[in-house]
């Protein structure tokens, strides 16, 4: 075998990679993962709630927040009523 033939053999070896039967499947899996990631919303509220409820002070925080919101709401109603009566009188 002369040099040119050896070179041609090298070229042929370099041009034809060994077969990989899983290659197309692997690419399609990457594409599926990419599409799934694209569809996932930026903020997942279920995950967020799960993480929040796992916190130590989650329950007291919710109760206190509810009380504060209730108080503010009551104050707004009282203020509105007071203003209405003041306008009428």
């Amino acid at each position, binding site marked *: 075998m002369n040099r*040119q033939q050896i*070179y041609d*053999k090298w*070229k042929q070896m*370099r*041009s034809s990679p060994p077969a990989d039967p899983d290659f197309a499947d692997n*690419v399609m899996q*990457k*594409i599926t993962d990419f599409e799934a990631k694209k569809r996932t919303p930026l903020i997942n509220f279920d995950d967020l709630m799960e993480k929040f409820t796992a916190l130590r002070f989650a329950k007291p925080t919710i109760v206190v927040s509810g009380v504060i919101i209730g108080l503010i709401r009551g104050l707004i109603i009282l203020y509105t009523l007071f203003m209405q009566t003041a306008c009428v009188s």
Partner: protein
Amino acid sequence: MCDENEIIQLVLTGYTDRFRLIVERYQNPVRSMVRNFFSNGNLSEDIAQEVFLAAYKNLSSFDQSRCTFSTWLFTITKYKCINVLRKKKPITAESLPERAATPNPTENLENEEFHARLDTELDNLPIKYKTIFILAEFQNQTYQQIAQIEAIKIGTVRSRLHRAKQMLAHALKDLQGDIR
């Protein structure tokens, strides 16, 4: 066989699974091109997969009036390879490609030596010569296609390929290599 542009249109309209036809059609040339840039088989398989993923993500930007799909795909492959090459570690003996054994051991040894030298010298070529050499010699791309991929003139492609061959031949002088 389905026309490429038809497949692309189908993929763009949501038939993602049709992209498999493109992968099956082009996996060998892309894998071969990547393998010629990197001796490491696992790394080159990962890069080849990344090439197809990048092609999928950017499929809407493919303009058939500017170039053929294969030229577009080879351009993506080239850029992926160059990006990885920039971060690449030095080549180790273990990472050199595996070869099939030949029946004659003496001939095998001689061929192995010549092939190993060719592999090393190809790896040592400057990237602009290496890319053109790979595209012309292994991927059988025409000068015009290479010019499109590299965004250079055909004359430059010719001269770079000639220079790459000269460099390889010079490096193999002590083995009395004569390549066309």
